[in-house]
């Protein structure tokens, strides 16, 4: 059983809860691999996608996950809604709840928005990414994919590479993988790795070659183009020269190391196409697993005692 009605972050979950989600997702992965990809588990329930930030893959993944569970799904399109007329966040959420939402799946550019809403509405809030705080379902699908490929997570050497400072994915991955017993290191330019993050029990490498040595899993992050020109690094070209995952660099990791990326990718900047499309890449499997994991999250949250 999960303890809380909401999934706000990995921070709040125990290792047992994480494993429960991953185990449950295994069953749902079988379901979505079938010819008839749907189960009636949450029939009659309603999920609302409330995305205040542009997103295609996460929103679609949640939508599909809800539909596979036989839920009704509404996509609350923000640019067309009253939000542009100045409606407050809380009013929007209360309105969505009044429409009968059982799940509110929220993405917002401000950290803490899911936490704020969770105290205001009775529906289950699922954090689909808030500011630079967390993106818990991404971390769960990453953990699911690693477990599937490596058979375990405990004891693995995992590197997260790129813009850690602005990445909610990196944060959720760190919490999740540490709770499951992995050794986590971060690789990237010093301007994109906050000094204090080492207090979370991770090691930091600024040199890509050193950092990649003997890794089991390489998790690449997207370099956000808007960071360029803000002084974090001089140019994408220089970034790529130092931190792009190339075939030569990949050979420094273990021979059976897998390569992950949450998407969307900047090919040639943080990862070269040969690797992204190559045999070590599990990037598309992450996408498929995302549906199973999100089904598991909603299924389990529906069972939380209120």
């Amino acid at each position, binding site marked *: 059983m999960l303890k809380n009605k909401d999934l706000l972050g990995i921070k709040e979950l125990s290792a047992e809860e994480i494993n429960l989600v991953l185990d449950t997702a295994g069953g749902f992965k079988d379901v979505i691999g079938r010819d008839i990809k749907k189960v009636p588990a949450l029939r009659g329930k309603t999920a609302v996608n409330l995305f205040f930030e542009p997103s295609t893959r996460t929103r679609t993944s949640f939508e599909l996950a809800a539909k596979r569970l036989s839920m009704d799904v509404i996509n609350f399109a923000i640019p067309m809604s009253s939000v542009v007329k100045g409606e407050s966040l809380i009013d929007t959420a209360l309105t969505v709840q009044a429409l009968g939402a059982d799940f509110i799946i929220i993405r917002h550019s401000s950290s803490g928005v899911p936490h704020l809403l969770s105290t205001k509405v009775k529906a289950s809030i699922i954090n689909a990414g808030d500011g630079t705080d967390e993106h818990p379902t991404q971390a769960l699908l990453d953990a699911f994919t690693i477990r599937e490929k490596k058979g375990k997570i405990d004891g693995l050497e995992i590197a997260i590479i790129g813009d850690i400072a602005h990445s909610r994915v990196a944060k959720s991955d760190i919490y999740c993988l540490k709770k499951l017993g992995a050794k986590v290191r971060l690789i990237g330019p010093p301007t994109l790795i906050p000094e*204090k993050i080492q207090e979370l029990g991770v090691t930091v490498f600024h040199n890509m070659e050193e950092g990649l040595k003997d890794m089991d899993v390489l998790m690449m992050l997207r370099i956000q183009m808007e960071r360029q020109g803000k002084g974090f690094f001089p140019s994408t070209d220089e970034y790529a020269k130092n931190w792009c995952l190339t075939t030569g660099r990949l050979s420094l990791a273990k021979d059976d190391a897998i390569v992950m990326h949450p998407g969307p990718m900047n090919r040639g900047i943080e990862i070269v196409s040969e690797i992204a499309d190559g045999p070590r890449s599990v990037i598309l499997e992450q996408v498929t697993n995302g549906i199973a994991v999100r089904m598991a999250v909603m299924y389990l949250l529906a069972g939380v005692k209120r």
Partner: protein
Amino acid sequence: MRILIQNGHIIDPSQGMSGTGDILIEDGKIKDIKTKSREQRQKTRDDDHTERIIDAKGLIVLPGLIDMHVHLREPGFEYKETISSGTLAAVKGGFTTVCCMPNTFPVNDNASVTEFIKRKASQEGHCTVLPIGAITKGQKGEELAEIGTMKKEGCIAFSDDGHPVMNSLIMRRALEYSKAFGVPIISHCEDLTLSEDGVMNEGLLSVTLGLKGIPAEAEQIMIFRDILLAELTGGRLHIAHVSTEGSVNLIRNAKKRGVQVTAETCPHYFSITEEAVSGYNTNAKVNPPLRTKRDIEAIKEGLRDGTLDVIATDHAPHHRDEKMREFDMAPFGISGLENAVSLSLRLVREGILTMDQLVEKMTINPAEILQINKGNLKVGSDADLVIIDTDKEFAVRSDQFVSKGKNTPFEGWMTEGTPVLTVCKGKIYE
């Protein structure tokens, strides 16, 4: 109207007075004040003309407190606070003189706005309101405002609070020019290029909450610059709301060198850490941000050794709806007038300050910086005083604030010691 306050423990650092005694008030002025030993005590002044006798036995009687850093929001933001509601909160909190920052709309950067504030305060205010004028026109940091004219109209200090003067040349000119009028320049020290759009203290907590941090250095760099400029110009510099250990050290060293610098801190900077922000509590969002335990210790030491001269509240009321939103979009500020006394009394209980020292930091020290005849109980002065019950326990409840701003991170705190009666120019608030 004659009021006699009897048997209270009177503390008035301006006269070196601390002892049980009586105060007689007549026509809004202190008529007589005497402390005496038990044997001498006699009912002499309680005659037929006294209209009100207040027994202050077991209570302390202080000069009305001065808060040299508040935001009254009027004109322009009356939905947050008005001169009327803000000054009522002041007297409830034991303050009889408040200095209001110029970030109103329009900005108090010219004598007509100053005149408006003074007039409103005399009509609707409950305590003395002394406006602080803007250093630069529109608080834009580009051109000096008419400091001399505003001084004449009633401004007692100048500050671009919240919009620090980033241009060092303009700041130099302000410190130079203000010397002609003998007014201090109050600096909100923040290097805006370094703090950027930060919303809380920079550290592990800002990383885990995913909130953009403001490093302590953003404050310290500016404090150091302003100290150097004060040294260069001989102008009078007052540093607002000191929040970090490094800032305390910089000011301490400057004072040792003989720089004309004074400084204040606020109750929240010696009472709570950045942890108050956890859970995205916008009521703990304040600028400068709440810092760490180590900073609190340094601030207490700064208060103890006199590096920090003044305790001010930086009372910054906001409407509930503005605070009830995304953390990074909510405004900075804490509604502080109504618990400043109880939070500050903790310093005395912890042995950081003596009661006399605490009273100095809320009366004669700000009075001296601002060069005003307030914060004392001398015969002939305005009858501004506050009676405090140091033992009274109560829970902080924002719904009982008279300020329109209910934004406090101290909600539900059990505290000890509170003003029970305030007299402002002879008028009693209880």
